[in-house]
């Protein structure tokens, strides 16, 4: 199945892209997207604990089950205000 992956802030810089349609296997969960990001840049390991995930504009836990067509965002620590 396919998901739309969106990256922001430091995650975007580390990966070198801000949006990509990626193929993931059935049964994948939100935090699985990090594994492919780590393969592209090992520095993602350092961020593992501080990244959050959002699916279709809602924060979810890392074990949230993805479905085809989901928009999955990797959310580094926010710093608005």
């Amino acid at each position, binding site marked *: 199945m396919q998901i739309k992956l969106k990256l922001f802030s*430091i995650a975007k810089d580390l990966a070198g892209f801000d949006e990509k349609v990626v193929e993931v296997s059935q049964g994948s969960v939100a935090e699985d997207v990090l594994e492919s990001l780590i393969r592209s840049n090992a520095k993602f390991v350092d961020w593992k604990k*501080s990244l959050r995930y*959002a699916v279709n504009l*809602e924060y979810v836990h890392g074990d949230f089950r993805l479905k085809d067509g989901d928009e999955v*965002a990797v959310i580094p620590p926010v710093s*608005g205000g």
Partner: protein
Amino acid sequence: MVQLTKNRIETEEVLRSVIAPESGAVNVFVGTTRNHSNGRRVTSLEYEAYEPMAVKMMERVVREAQGRWDVSRISVVHRIGKVNIGESSVVIAVSSPHRDEAFQACRFLIDRLKQVVPIWKREFFEDGSSEWSLQSHEQETATQAG
């Protein structure tokens, strides 16, 4: 009014947007951009947002405040894109029948916004380098608790 804007925030306009006949107080919080960060001189800043989610979360934080305090109207406007030093990055206005509720709701709104709204600040330094301002979620929670 809940809004992200690439333009300068007109504080007066945000303030006027919450004035209601039943309100006896308006509280306004203005966040402005600082010229220093961890001892380094900052020359300008840039805010990036996950725009649709940021608006959604700002609206949710507003509803949370409305559920907790007797407030009349709330407006939250956050700047995105490049922002010069000393300009407003966020303006929050709350009107309520009585001042105490307006103060409390306003404080809550800025604190929650900083925790949950997906907006990121990048600081540009004198030497031309830049860095994302990143506080871990855990640290942020601890700071809030402290």
